[in-house]
């Protein structure tokens, strides 16, 4: 009578967050390994994987910010716009200031733009209690509009210091491969990847070990309860948007570094990819559940599937769209089936 039995076995020991993370990693591995086995070709070379990282470093960074907002129960759809604005502003600064701009200053500009968006949007969401969707929708239009005001036409940045930074590659030893002509090509990653990985690590630690990080989960889980537990809910929501804005700034700069140009149409739909990656990575739209490592795998899954689709000879854009849509449904389906199974096994 006094010792009630603990039910549910394995399900009882694993939290929702970790359960969803495991699902994501397993699905990613299955997908990537079957691509190597069945498609072969490029997938056999490690550089394929590094290229995915090179291309998706900006998305990894922004998706991490998105995950934090989503874990806190919010959403931020302005990040594509902010990334475009950051690219354009930095491009204009670097090439159109007399005598050319300084690369370090351009980085500060990127951070400042991201932070500014984060602070303003966070303030409106947390302290004025406006729906995050509405606030960041406005932010998105504003950022896109500003981008065009800064400069209407797309252009490539010629600034030499910037070019040098852009072309810097970090070689990964022992991972190279031979071309058809027998030439050895070293495997390499861009600087952005290092930044992205550093950010993943830092944000993972923040979410796991800091009081602020845990507050994000509490607020997303149940804001009313979080308040009663003595958490400053408004401040927590505010900071989630500030971090997301900052990530949009950093991600924007990494994006800029990758493409080397400014254009009003840059990063169109990036916020949607970030949301998709977060969800695939096990972040729940309802808040309170999610993981940065999961988000990393979410981005990798999303990008791999695009590569797989085009390797399979379905290069057209709509096929990628259709597969991503299908995959998102599949992930959500698997997630809800597992969550349902968990609930059931705990009830029984």
């Amino acid at each position, binding site marked *: *009578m*006094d*010792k*009630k*039995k*603990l039910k*549910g076995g394995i*399900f*009882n*020991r694993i*939290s*929702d*967050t970790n359960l969803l993370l495991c699902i994501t990693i397993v699905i990613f591995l299955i997908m990537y390994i079957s691509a190597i086995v069945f498609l072969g070709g490029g997938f056999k070379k490690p550089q394929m994987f590094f290229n995915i990282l090179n291309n998706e470093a900006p998305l990894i960074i922004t998706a991490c910010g998105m995950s934090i907002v989503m874990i806190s129960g919010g959403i931020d759809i302005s990040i594509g716009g902010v990334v475009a604005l950051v690219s354009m502003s930095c491009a204009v600064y670097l090439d159109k200031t007399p005598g050319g701009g300084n690369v370090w200053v351009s980085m500060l500009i990127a951070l400042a733009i991201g932070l500014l968006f984060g602070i303003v949007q966070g303030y409106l969401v947390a302290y004025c209690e406006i729906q995050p969707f509405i606030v960041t929708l406005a932010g998105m239009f504003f950022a896109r509009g500003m981008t065009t005001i800064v400069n209407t036409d797309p252009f490539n940045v010629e600034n030499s210091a910037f070019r040098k930074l852009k072309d810097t590659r970090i070689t990964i030893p022992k991972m190279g491969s031979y071309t058809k002509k027998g030439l050895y090509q070293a495997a390499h990653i861009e600087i952005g990847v290092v930044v992205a990985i550093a950010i993943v690590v830092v944000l993972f630690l923040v979410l*796991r*070990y*800091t*009081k*602020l*990080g*845990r*507050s994000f*989960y*509490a607020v*997303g*889980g*149940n804001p*009313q*309860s*979080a*308040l*009663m*537990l*003595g*958490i*400053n809910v408004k401040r927590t929501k505010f900071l989630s948007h500030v971090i997301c804005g900052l990530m949009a700034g950093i991600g924007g700069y990494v994006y800029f570094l990758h493409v080397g140009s400014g254009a009003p149409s840059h990063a169109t739909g990036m916020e949607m990819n970030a949301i998709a990656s977060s969800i695939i990575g096990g972040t729940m739209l309802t808040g*309170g*559940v999610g993981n940065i490592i999961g988000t990393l795998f979410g981005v990798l899954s999303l990008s791999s599937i695009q590569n797989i689709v085009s390797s399979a000879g379905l290069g057209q854009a709509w096929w990628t769209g259709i597969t991503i849509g299908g995959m998102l449904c599949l992930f959500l389906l698997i997630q809800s089936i597992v969550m349902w199974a968990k609930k059931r096994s*705990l009830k029984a």
Partner: protein
Amino acid sequence: MDEYRLLEMRGIEKTFPGVRALQNVDFSLNAGEIHALMGENGAGKSTLIKVLTGVYSKDAGTIRLDGKEVKIHSPQDAQNAGISTVYQEITLCPNLSVAENMFIGRGNGKITNWKEMNDRAKTLLERLDIPAKATQQLANCSIAVQQMVAIARAIDMECKVLILDEPTSSLDEQEVEKLFGLMRDLKAMGVGIIFVTHFLDQVYEVCDKITVLRDGQLVGEYEIRDLPRVQLVAKMLGKEMDDLSDIKGEHEAYHSPDADMKIFEAEKLQSNAGIKPFNFHIQKGEVNGFTGLLGSGRSECVRAIFGADRVIGGKVKVKGKEVKIHKPKDAMKNGIAYLPEDRKVDGIIGDLSVRENIILALQVMKGFFKPFTKAQAYAFADEYIKKLNIKTASADTPIKSLSGGNQQKVILARWLLMHPEYLILDEPTRGIDVGTKVDIQKLVLELASGGMSITFISSETDEMLRTCSRLIVMRDRKVVGELSGDDLTQSMIMSTIAGGESDE
């Protein structure tokens, strides 16, 4: 130490849109004292507590802690000031682990040391005998465990004032005893405890003083030895005890030529919920009831009548005509309404207004594509708000901001609006205060004298005795007897339940 005034609240005022929840309320608490805060549902107890802990901001009044005036703007401030609270509703985060729920939001450290936290949580869980793991996700714990986790969190804090707002509602006897032991320990250490409960036994077991609130106003503060139970109830209700006595006599039985018409009749009715086939009938204007121990099949019987469980055998007649009742809607079409036992789960729709909740069932019957006009809806709502004396700011108030008893009345109104000929009430008074209970009992009798047939189920036999003119007694999912007239006594019920061998 013994008369040290720890907390002093003076002239507290709080108004919600349309409701004066607190009017000029004073409350004081000494160190080393367990102080009961009593009052009916909606009296303002929880509001007073939430004003104290900064969940609501007060409109007027002062709060002094340790003799100094304090301004508390958030639960965080309250915690820092040494006030720890277990709120009435469970206020933990279901997505976090048990340990985190115990420690989050406390202390000033910026970093979470998981190992230390889990160890401390584990010790605490063991000390309090809570059957949960520190690393387990809270959502996987039962409500009772969650409530104990909330209590563990509160008592683990270094606090001067501990507030427990109805902490015992889902705990069993042993758990309550354990809680009382802890409360006595803390009391010995000089902590002042505010304790809210509906169980009078518990008040008289642990408390030193009682403060009574009624309709947002202070009735008074009493030493426990100066206030016998009967008087406490009278103070809470604001009426004298004889109001509670024989209410059956006040209501005329239904006298009409059709009084012996059988509104509903069942023969060998059986459902898939595991009850033995049973016979049953009810006449026009009759109040009868199913009684028996918890789990004896009372609810299953009425669920079979209403078609809420799958009926697998037997015949049913409504007004002498044989009908088929397979699902609740069939029953509703035949003029039967049913107020289920677990209405907290599926009875109310919290965000909808009182009005919308009232017209819901009628709307379902009418079909969703033929909505009522606004005027009609308001007319219905106002009529029943008045009839049932529902305490709400207006018909547009979301139902979730009403007290439990008043939510109950709204659901009752929903079914009454359908003008059923036969109304089934399963535990309509559970978890609500004495005053509302009496209101509902009176209402039942009033409806019956107007010609409605009612089946009433309650765990409290005295309540059944006061309202029903015939009782069907159940044991082990079987009907074992029927009592009426002079047999309607506590001891007859007991002996029937026990199988005629009771010594009582």
